[in-house]
């Protein structure tokens, strides 16, 4: 069970669930969580292959991915708070407002 194929299957299933969440849900929080889930699945893939090759570069790359996810969380959640305060809903349509403010 604990072979390369087992870990790869788990991470591909998690990545697919994240992608399906981005496709099918309209709640902006759930879309954010699906993106986080996809990042986690890629981390699992990187760590699996780091163990497979006994090379720790994969650990460093997945640590960088965690740092990017933390930076993304700060920006994404503050944008969601701003949009929820002004619009009062959580639909993904609120992000079309960002296009008009630039013009």
């Amino acid at each position, binding site marked *: 069970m604990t072979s390369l194929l087992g870990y790869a299957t788990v991470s591909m299933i998690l990545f697919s669930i994240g992608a399906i969440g981005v496709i*099918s849900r309209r709640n902006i929080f759930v879309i954010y969580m699906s993106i986080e889930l996809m990042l986690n699945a890629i981390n699992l893939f990187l760590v699996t292959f780091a163990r497979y090759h006994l090379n720790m570069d994969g*650990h460093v790359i997945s640590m960088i991915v965690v740092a990017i*996810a933390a930076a993304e969380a700060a*920006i994404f959640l503050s944008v969601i708070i701003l949009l929820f305060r002004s619009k009062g809903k959580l639909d993904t349509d609120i992000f079309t407002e960002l296009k008009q403010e630039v013009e």
Partner: protein
Amino acid sequence: MIDVLFVALAFFAITGATSMLLYKSPIYAALGLLICVISIGGLFALLSASFMFMVQIIVYAGAIMTLLLFILMYLNIDEEDLPEEPNRNFLIGVGIAVMLPINALILDTIAKMPQADMSVVEEGFGGVKEIGVLLYNDWIIPLELISILILIAVIGSVVLAKKRKAKELN
């Protein structure tokens, strides 16, 4: 023993992710994702990546998911604020139909790779010391770039918080 742990952690990870996909309320979805993230941390520990296990528990489950739960409770979302998702099940079916061939292709490729022993490495792999040596020798430029990125994110969130106050005064 390790097989049992792997199956249990994989089961919890996939169950948490599925509940995140299916629950309508975002707070239940966040709790499902929390279970999933902690289980992925356990899988990191099984892959003898002890430093990544710590990072996953402290940064992901401890900081990012707690921030998300804190914001969900702070916004106090009612049932009528949630968007309607009339064709959610249809889109989930479309997503499964799209993702299945990709999964089959990638897993078929990986099954043809030479299988290595994935048991726990005793010492000298994945600890804090080894990662630190690697990070400050080979990966010093990406590390500095990441620090600049996090600085930009801090400035960005400060700017966003300030803009809201100016808007409210108007």
